[in-house]
Structures are given as structure tokens and as C-alpha cells.
């Protein structure tokens, strides 16, 4: 059985597959527990990602306007302090100025924290993967595939040996040459 690639499974989990492809894949999923499990895992990941988006709306424009206003207020206050003695403006005491500056700093800090780098959303990377198929070995990576085929050989007459370095070898007698052939596909 030929399994669909990870990108197709991920698209299906997200409901982004076309009608025909979805119908075709659903037929496969009905028979293949492994792929159905993969789709379930993608769906679980998708729900998790969706949950991350549930950050409450923040009125950025309002916040920015408020920050600008406060900064202008601070600057104006500074001008006032320079121009006249603070004693003549009792409503603008040193303590109040300090509170105003602290508020501005707090607003800036909050802005930096909220606007700063957000945690990266969970994404399923297109990992290279090597596997034996019905008639050969195939490397899949990012929507591309490269494979070596065992043409004209029954799969029970092919000896597959995975390699923990990231590849798979298939050895068989090539019917067209009569020679022993060892195909290897390396994932890295």
C-alpha cells in the first residue's frame, strides 16, 4: 500500500484538501490506521495552535495614542518646570511628575512586552522521510520526492535494510540484467 505524504495528511487535517483528493484520502484512511493516527495527531496540533490565538484583543491604536499623549504631557510638564518655579504650580508637584513618568515607563514596558517576540506557533515541519514503498524506496521532503524503484521485482523478493544514519537499502536481483542490485536512498 502506498501511503500519502505528510503534507497531504496535514492538509486533510486542516480541511484544506480538494474534493477529489479528500475523497481519495478518506478511502485510504479507512484502511490505514497509521495514517489515520497521523491525521488525528495533526488535528490535535491544529487545535492547540488555534488555542494559542485566543489572546484577548488589545486596542493598540488607543494604547499608542494614550502613550503619545502621556509623553507630550511629560514634555510639556518639563517645559513648565523649566519656565516657572514648581512652587507656583502646586498641581504639578515633583511627586506627581514622578508618578506620571513612572506611568509612562510602565506603559512603554507593557508595550514592549506585548509587542515583543511572541512564542512561535506550533508548526509541523516538512521533515525528510525515507520509506520503502510497494516498488522501491522513496525520500519525501517538502513536497518533493526522489525514489529508486525495484522494477519488475516482487516485494517479497526484495530485502530492505534501514540504516539508522537516515537511509534505506533494497537488494534484489534485477530481472533485466540478472545482476544483484543494491539501491540505497539516503535522507541526508
Amino acid at each position, binding site marked *: 500500500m502506498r501511503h500519502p505524504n505528510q503534507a497531504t495528511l496535514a492538509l486533510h487535517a486542516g480541511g484544506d484538501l480538494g474534493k477529489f483528493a479528500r475523497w481519495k484520502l478518506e478511502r485510504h484512511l479507512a484502511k490505514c490506521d497509521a495514517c489515520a493516527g497521523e491525521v488525528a495527531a495533526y488535528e490535535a496540533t491544529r487545535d492547540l495552535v488555534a488555542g494559542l490565538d485566543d489572546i484577548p484583543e488589545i486596542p493598540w491604536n488607543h494604547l499608542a495614542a494614550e502613550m503619545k499623549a502621556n509623553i507630550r504631557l511629560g514634555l510639556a510638564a518639563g517645559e513648565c518646570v523649566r519656565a516657572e518655579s514648581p512652587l507656583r504650580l502646586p498641581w504639578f508637584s515633583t511627586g506627581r511628575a514622578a508618578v506620571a513618568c513612572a506611568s509612562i515607563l510602565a506603559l512603554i514596558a507593557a508595550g514592549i512586552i506585548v509587542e515583543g517576540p511572541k512564542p512561535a506557533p506550533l508548526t509541523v515541519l516538512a521533515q525528510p522521510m525515507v520509506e520503502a514503498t510497494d516498488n522501491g524506496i522513496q525520500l519525501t521532503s517538502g513536497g518533493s520526492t*526522489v525514489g529508486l524503484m525495484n522494477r519488475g521485482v516482487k516485494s517479497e523478493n526484495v530485502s530492505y535494510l534501514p540504516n539508522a544514519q537516515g537511509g534505506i537499502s533494497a537488494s534484489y536481483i534485477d530481472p*533485466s540484467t540478472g545482476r544483484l542490485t543494491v539501491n540505497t536512498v539516503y535522507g541526508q
Partner: protein
Amino acid sequence: MRLAVLGLLSVAVAPAQDGLLPKGSVGIIVPNDSPVVVISSSTDESRTALRGAALMLDLHMSLTLRNVGVNRIHGITLRVVSQEVTIGGKASVAMPSLNIGPGEVFPVRIDAQLMRPTQMSAGPLVEVSLDGVLFQDLSFYGPDRLNSRRIMTAMEKEAQRDRDHFKRILAQGAPALQQAILASMNRQAERPRLDVRVIPHGPAVTSAATAAPEQAQKFAFLQIPDSPVQPVQGWAMVSGNEARAPRIEVKNNSSKAVKYVELGWLVRDPSGKQYMAASLPASDANLYLPAGKSAQVQQETQLTFSRERKPVNVQGMTGFVSQVEFADGTVWVPTRENLSRVMLDKVVPPSAEEQRLTEIYRTRGLNGLVEELKKF
């Protein structure tokens, strides 16, 4: 409605763009001083096709090579690289167990499939180049970018071992040889097999996020009596039917320095059945293990096991040393007797040569097999 029209257009256009392989799509590189030359090459049966936005290349290539050197050729490896460099993958087609004399010609066949999401661009889509030639005296020619020297030398050592084994049996009479080869065929048919998916760098997001939690599982070891290197301890991370990041400490018990170690990795399912999961090569390309010293064999790969489309959970793991290359370039492989002594002959795949000899018996009968053994 628009979708339906587009669908029909796609169906109508796609076959029109199917066709023969454009000239220059496959490059063949053989150095001028190579002991083999290309006599002829054909890609007549090859096809390209557009499937949606993807380009599909179905390559069927026949090469005829001639041995223009003075030594008998016992193995050859061709490197096959796709133009799609971003995929990071490569492939090889090797022919071990050859016996090609000077001046003789021999065929090589390459069947490859390539699918990528972009249109065809300039330059060859696939490049086939010579990676190495192994001679009867185990000398080697070639750039060896895929470690073909070591791989083919180990195959040749196994081939010599297995030919000698069957020749010794032949010395007892043809019926004894027939019995031995039938036993080999039975072993090959009964050997439990696993389907294994390999993810070279381990998972970014595990597909088993909802499965059993991952845990470090220890390896048990089979000590092969004459092995120059012994496994000491090791483990891998296991979760259900997935295993990754194996690490095994090995010790050089021989008197010679070692530059490569490869282990066999067996897994046991909950019913107690053992399978050959993978070979586990040393990851360090510059490994140098002096006599008496220890080193660690490790990989970051993740393997996923299944059988008949059902996950096979890993209940236990066993390791054994399957290949050692010494610093002087000589290679050690286990003897058949020692493989049998630790019951590995029923689990590990047959050597490429044993596979070839049984196929000769299957197609040419006992007399054909006897004739073949006499050639070496």
C-alpha cells in the same frame, strides 16, 4: 462551476504535457582515467509528466559499461543525485558480487522517480556519476563520496564467506548443496520483516504526541565470539512503535585501531518476536578507536515500525556488532558459524551474495548454481 471547469482543464492539459524525457535531462559523469567506460546509454522508456503543479520524472535508464582496466571488477557503485538540491537527498545504485574480466561489458539499470513542485529548469534533472569500483584484490578506484569502498569491501567479504560456505557443502556432494540452498530459501521466506519509516534528524513534532510517553530503553547485547569490538552499554528513546536517538558504547578489544563500527539493531514486539530493525553505523566520520579504548556509536534518527499496516510496539531491543573497519582499511564481518551460534541467522537478512546464489538456484537449478560457484 468554476472549480469544475478548472478541473476539466487540468485533466485536459496534463496529458498533453506528458512526454519523453527532454535531451540532456540526465547527466552521466565518468572520469577519464576510470577503469570503466560507458559503451551505450538509453533512457527511451523514460517519461516526464505534469501533475497539477508538480513535475514527475519517471526515469528508466540502461547503461552498458566496459571494464577497460587490467583487474577483474567485483563491484561498482553509481551515485544518483537529483537536481532538486533543497531536498538534501541522494541515492546510489550498487552492483556487488560482480566478476567482470578486463575487456568484458556488463549492463547497469537505474529506475528512478522524481517528483517536485516546480517546473523543469535548465541543466540535467538527474546526474549519475561513478562513485567507486572494487576489484578482485579489494583495491578500489573512485571518489568514494558515499563510502562505497567500505560498503563494497564488506559486501565482498560476506560474498567470499558465503561462497566458501556453499563450496564446502558442495564438496560433500550436490544433494548436500541442494539441501543447504533450500534451507537458505526457507530462512529467507520465514524471516520476520518490519516496515520501517526513517526520519533522518528525528521529529520536529512527534506524530505520537498522543501515544505512550517516551522513555529511555536499554539495549541487550549479543556478543559475537570473534568480534574485535564489543558493545558495552546503550539505550534509545522509545515511545510505542517509535524509537530514536540510539546510543551505544563500544570497546575495541582487538590489537588494531578501528576507524568504523556498525551494529545491527533488533527490536522485539510484545509477543516476543524479533525483527531486524536497522543497521546502526558510527556517526563520526573521523572515528579513530585505538586498541583497548571505548567510543560511542550514536545517531539522531527516528525509526517508526509497522507490519501489515499495523504499528509494532517496541518491547525490547538488542544490538550486536555487524561490521568493523580497521585503520589499515581491512574489514571484519561475522562468520556464518558465529551468526548461527547466537541465533542471528534467523533474524538478519541474508547477505547479498546468498540472495544471489539462491536466485541462481531458483532460475537455473542446481547445475547452474554449481557452475556459478566454480567460477570463483
